[in-house]
């Protein structure tokens, strides 16, 4: 492992990879900093650029965008009270209050340091746990994969913003979309209506581009005329002191670990993690009343928590082939485009790529920290990019990106359709991310359920007589139970 890691570092600092990595992080920070542009969208937009690249630089660039994008979201959240990404929604609570108090630079530097700590912890855990998990994953058979997919699908409940039923509805829409094409077991055409392009199923990348990039572009277009131009707050140049660093360090480490755990669960993303870490930091804080009024701990918890997801979400992606969140779903697409199959065999067949990614993630986090500190003055200018120029750029890039996957206008049609669907669902307060997760996990659940039933000659006993499968099913039940309990608590708190 050590030699692979060292060669990974050598690769990360090579002339073929390092500039791409820096470009990725920088691009991610800029994209994330622009309100409305998420890390998912950034990775999705840049994905077509990687089609002609080698596997390592392509994946490193996308991971750089991911890490940079999650951090970048905090910049607009702190300065403009507009979270650049959903993951930064919790950052607004204390970050913007600090900026109002004239501590904008301090808030930005706390965000950079906490993001770095969260990202670094997450990567270390990924390096330490991923190979063990990969060995464990080799014991997986159809019943275990079905139970795992089922567990992943239950997380849809927690990604559902306010109303679990709406999230579940989005999930079922995604599951039905994933059924389009030839049935994986008996090759019966389903919902193809004689359209040849539908026989191979609906490609996930145009769906993703549509749901995230196009839908967001349309949302921003609509908001553009109604939004009053909010002036950026005045900028103070006082950065984080060493004493402040010592204060936020325990919170950042704890949140980084929580974020990594949340990220490693398929279906849970950086937005959930940020809030979970924020709540946990508030729960154990000596002065919880400071939270929401410019607490350094609150800001550090949210930022370390959302960056902690970056490595965590790659654990199930690389070891089991199950994406932890929407960004890793795009990364899954990137791996497939490069001819790599995510899963346990990736560690034995392509260790140089896996460890290259790990080493690059550490380097990417360091680059992000440097960019974060050096760019504090510059960020204030970037977030002033007029939306009138950004929106068509998003829309045109999305159309071109969807076309470039298969050189097919059919995929453009799919992206546009899902763009409109995503836009309308947003109006109905129905979250889009469950659709994506269901499209990914649906075929896995169906194929493995039917394989299991064939293996057990029609008996459903595989659900309880295989320990790993049973454990995942129990996790799934616990996950649904805890989500319902949490939502009830939130509702009660809102009423009070």
């Amino acid at each position, binding site marked *: 492992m050590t030699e692979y890691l060292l060669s990974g570092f050598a690769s990360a600092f090579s002339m073929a990879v390092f500039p791409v990595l820096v470009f990725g992080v920088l691009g991610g920070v800029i994209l994330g900093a622009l309100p409305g542009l998420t890390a998912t969208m950034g990775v999705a937009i840049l994905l*077509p*650029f990687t*089609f*002609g*690249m080698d596997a390592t630089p392509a994946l490193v660039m996308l991971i750089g965008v991911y890490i940079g994008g999650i951090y970048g979201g905090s910049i607009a959240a702190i300065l403009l009270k507009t979270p650049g990404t959903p993951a930064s929604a919790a950052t607004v609570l204390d970050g913007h209050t600090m900026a109002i108090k004239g501590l904008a630079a301090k808030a930005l530097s706390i965000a950079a340091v906490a993001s770095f700590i969260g990202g670094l912890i997450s990567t270390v855990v990924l390096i330490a746990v991923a190979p063990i998990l990969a060995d464990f994953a080799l014991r997986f058979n159809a019943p275990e994969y079905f139970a795992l997919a089922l567990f992943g699908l239950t997380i849809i409940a927690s990604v559902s913003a306010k*109303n679990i*039923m*709406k999230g*579940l*509805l989005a999930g*079922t*829409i995604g*599951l*039905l979309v994933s*059924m389009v094409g030839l*049935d994986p*077991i*008996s090759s*019966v055409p*389903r*919902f193809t209506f004689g359209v040849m392009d539908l026989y191979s199923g609906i490609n996930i990348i145009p769906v993703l581009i549509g749901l995230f990039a*196009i839908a967001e*572009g*349309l949302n921003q*277009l*609509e908001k*553009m*005329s109604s939004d009053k131009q909010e002036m950026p707050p005045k900028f103070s140049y006082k950065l984080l002191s060493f004493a402040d660093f010592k204060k936020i360090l325990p919170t950042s480490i704890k949140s980084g670990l929580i974020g990594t755990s949340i990220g490693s669960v398929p279906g849970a993303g950086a937005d959930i993690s940020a809030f979970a870490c924020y709540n946990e930091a508030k729960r154990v804080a000596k002065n919880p009343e400071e939270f929401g009024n410019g607490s350094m701990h609150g800001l550090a918890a949210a930022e370390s928590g959302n960056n902690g997801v970056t490595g965590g979400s790659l654990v199930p992606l690389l070891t089991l082939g199950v994406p932890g969140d929407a960004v890793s779903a795009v990364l899954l697409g990137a791996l497939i485009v490069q001819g790599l199959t995510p899963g346990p065999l990736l560690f034995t067949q392509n260790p140089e790529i896996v460890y290259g990614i790990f080493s690059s993630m550490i380097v990417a986090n360091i680059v992000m920290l440097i960019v974060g500190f050096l760019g504090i003055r510059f960020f204030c200018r970037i977030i002033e990019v*007029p939306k*009138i*120029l950004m929106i*068509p*750029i998003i*829309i*045109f*890039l999305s*159309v*071109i990106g969807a*076309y*470039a996957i298969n*050189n097919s*206008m059919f995929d*453009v*049609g799919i992206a*546009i359709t899902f*763009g*409109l669907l995503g*836009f*309308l669902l947003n*109006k*109905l307060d129905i979250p889009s991310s469950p659709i994506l997760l269901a499209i990914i996990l649906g075929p896995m*659940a*169906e194929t493995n*359920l*039917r394989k299991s*039933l*064939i293996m057990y*000659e*029609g008996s459903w006993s595989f659900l309880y007589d295989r320990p790993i499968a049973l454990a995942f099913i129990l996790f799934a039940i616990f996950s649904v139970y805890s989500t319902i309990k949490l939502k009830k608590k939130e509702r009660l708190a809102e009423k009070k």
Partner: protein
Amino acid sequence: MLNRNIFFPSLIILLSLIFLVFISQFPEPRYQDAPVGAGFFPAVIAVLQIVICSVLIFQYKQKQNNQNKQKQQQTKEIPLVSKHSIFGFTLLIGYAALITLVGYLPASLVGFTYYLIYYRVKKPLYYVIAWIFVFTIYFLFGEVFVISLPEGLLFF
């Protein structure tokens, strides 16, 4: 006017019922070892959708009953589509159609310029940035990453 919170779930219920009809026409498994056929999973999902949508309609009705009428009158629903979103849809579909006909470069130049004119942008710099963006993408995709962009049916 039909409420969106009733209309959308009702539409999904209707579509699910139509799907169930389609699913019933899927061929049954021909070999003995396959306990469930191609229609099993989609049928379960369609039934689930009907249940979820019914719950959503019920939830909404219950919420409506709990709110007093005065409050209901005060809360105005944001329209589903606005002038700007309709322009967005049109731009998107028009751009996709134009790109199919004339290819990436002319379609993007025309599309971006039309968008700026529609929003009455008077700054020449924005037009220059738009055109530079279009040419940069053309260069990046075509020359750097060697990814083909739509060439247009008219120019074949």
